[in-house]
């Protein structure tokens, strides 16, 4: 699996495009800080079995519909994990 950063974690509380807060520690962290050992992946298209990558930051959902890998998918009814989290 590729490098994962705080923006891929379910405990990341986004504040702006640069930074956010850790929901657990309340510390200020940047979107691009690496996962810590308490991190858990958040549902995103790039972790979904329906997602297929096509080019940088673009792909398809179910092979037909435009999608992008970093979209948070906690509200997507069709989301399914590619691998056990």
């Amino acid at each position, binding site marked *: 699996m590729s490098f994962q950063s705080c923006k891929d974690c379910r405990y990341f*509380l986004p504040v*702006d495009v*640069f930074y956010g807060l850790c929901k657990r520690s309340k510390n200020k962290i940047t979107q691009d800080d690496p996962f810590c050992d308490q991190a858990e992946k958040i549902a995103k298209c790039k972790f979904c079995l329906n997602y297929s990558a096509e080019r*940088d930051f673009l792909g398809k959902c179910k092979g037909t519909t435009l999608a*992008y890998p970093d979209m948070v998918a906690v509200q997507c009814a069709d989301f399914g994990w590619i691998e056990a989290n």
Partner: protein
Amino acid sequence: MIKTESSHINYYGHQPGSQVENREQKKQITQRAGAARELYFETKSSVSMEFPYWYTRRWEELEGEIPVIRRAEALKSGFSHLTPVIYPGELLAMSKSSYLRGSYPMPWLSEAFFMAAEDKLYKEAQESGKLTADQFTTMGKGGGNVTRSIGNVISIAGKFGLRVEEMPVMIEIAKKWKDRSVDDVGHKYEQLVPGYSEKEALMRSVICMFDSGYTLPQGREVINYYYPLQFGFDGLIRRCRTRMEEVAGYPEMDRLYYYRATMILIEGLQQWIRNHAEEARFMASIETDVPQMKEYEEMAERLDWLASNPPRSFHESLQMIWLLHVAVLNEDAISGLSPGRVGQVLFPFWQRDILKKVITREQTLELLECMRMKFTAIDCFASMGVVGGVLSGNTFNNLCLGGLKKDGTSAANELEMLILEAGISCDTPQPTLSVLYDEKLPEEFLLKGVECTKIGTGYPAWINNQVAMEFLMANYGHEGMNLEEARAWSIGGCLETSPGSWMPLELDGEIHWIPGGSAPATSVGVHFLSLPKILEVTLFDGMDMRSGERIFPAHGYKLDTYDELWNAFRDYFRRACHVLTLTNNIQHDAWRKISPSLVNSMLKPDCLEQGKDIGQMGCRYNATFNIESCGTANLINSLASLKKNVFTDKTYSLNEYREAILANFGYHSAQETGSYSLIDQIPNDGYDRWKKIHRISLDAPKFGNDDPFVDEIMKAWETWFCTMTHDFRSLYNEPMYACQISVSTHGPMGAVTLAGADGRLGGTTFSDGSVSAYPGTDRNGPYALFNSATCWNHATSQNSQLNMKIHPSVVKGREGSRKFLDLIRSYLRKGGFHVQFNIVDSRMLKAAQAEPDKYRSLLVRVAGFTQYWVELGKQIQDEVIARTEYEEV
């Protein structure tokens, strides 16, 4: 006036002491709101693609569906897929997107910017990663604006940040709206208007600033919170279902689709609220701090309740109006969605809680401060010229206080006193406050308002209740507006008089008549017209000499007399209004067909009763289109100068004036000097040739000095302008009216306008507002300014705008407060519509311009809004510094 060469500041009265004077002491913000404000100060404007992605995806899936149903489904998809975010310590949840200061593009309105910028954005994405984190820390300038691309963030127009990962999808989504957006469809059909090319020329020359149809189709209006406060969302669904069954199959079938669409939309809103309740529960589940855990649990319970039911407490009612506010903002690019008279709308809930001891005044103050932080974080992603050039990044959520009740007695109440108190202790740009001044308002309330204005927040602005009511009766009388209903009015946006209605809120068996907006956007139409530029083009027989482009056909006047000049100017002005009204009507027609309002329509009386959305004239009042002007004082001063120097004294010929204007009176351009105020300009080598004509132009009579020579010109202009606007018909076949606020347009419009016969130099910023004097030219004191400003009847216009800058020492202490209130009263008693103040030592502004990082929290009043100094463009900063500073009143 004393011009201090050293500091380049215009003073009236004596010069201030050597020490820069601070504003009067502020009150302490509560710990909770203080923490929220600190977080806000560290936050950058951020754009995300979640909402537009899901909106567009659903829209595409429903190809061929009835348009209003398609729109409702798209909105439902957008709302229900937004990632919920709850910040620690907040008492009011929910925001536009998952960022604190978040917003998103709405390519269904206009996608042209992204299409045009595709290559640039890809290049930025490559370049941005090369910059180091150290460079990121230099971004203090500009406050919350992302002024440059850096790391994994792309700067859009120096304002918004977008993650690199979301840029390609933004472009792809934009492409899907090509030839389908309101902008594209409107543009296709507006070209069918005879003389369309003139419109294009008007836009290129910046005689007109922007098209409202696809940039800001809604806003400058007052929201109405009544229906959900009374019936709750489940109740509204039941009402829609009942009405739907009544109209199904009968003529006027659009009602059927409208009710169905509203039900679909409400389901989306309910899901959005419940998602936040779920997130609050998740936050509680991982929280170790017990009080915070309890707050999350209470929030979850509150949101779950509100997803279906009407509020049971003041806290719930405040949460309800906030989420409704966000819901409307998320359906369109909107500036100036005013919450209106919130203190009166929520008073029944608050009074009941106070009586039952459910809430204390201290808790109320804390909640109101939290509300301020929520409003302050609202951003709007409109086209760039609009966000920067017109709005200065502000979104104009105006909360009004005072005015009269339905029965004509004072409407001021104790909750409004607390709103003012929160405005003092939590001094932030939003919501801006306005006092609807009426002689019946109690002294204690007015002095509280003065206390707030004095600390330099720029709010409350002071608005004449009776003048506004007279305007409303005159313009909406034919739609049924009577005196009682006129009392329900409020300011929409920065300064737009907007009709309201009284709604019967029933609580514990008692009816409380609460005010709320009952008209669509009251400031769409012809936006804005540069009066000095039209005069310039008149002098050059239809040519824009800056670009060399012909704007209008030759006017055919020799301009041998002042009357000929006046007639030629008016002919051009009328021509501009004609073509811009027609093209704008087409754009708004495209908007109502492609992107009809559903959230706002659901709230506005009488859309639900009639089964019609706002675009189908479902609102109670619909005569809401206007023609907006900019640069009034420069126009009047230039006409006065030409009348005196060319046509009366004959000191110079018109040709000599033309030459002097083209030579910029022997000065370098404002762009060269890098300053946009007149007193900072630098002469060039040719200065001696133009010195005399420039001096005589500067010495010509100036508006704002109680001089009948120039005030007569003002009166003639206003009388004509406020009448001729009625000759133009809106999309809804209603007469239009005059609107006279500059917002921030006096900066960019001044930047493209050559020098004027008033002595203003090319490229410098115009005077602000519409009855403000040009900086440094009001030499006879405030009362002379008031006499000039009220030489015409303000009730014939949607508004007028007067900005004043007063040194803090002048209004210090209780004595100063009384003097200040007398000053405000004397202007409003003369019939002035509006006055607002900067209470500031101009030298502090100069210092802030030099070292912005030290002044992150410094607020100033621009024109109808308060903004952080560091987030204003240089053109506007220079203009605010240059305004005459009153050292005595």
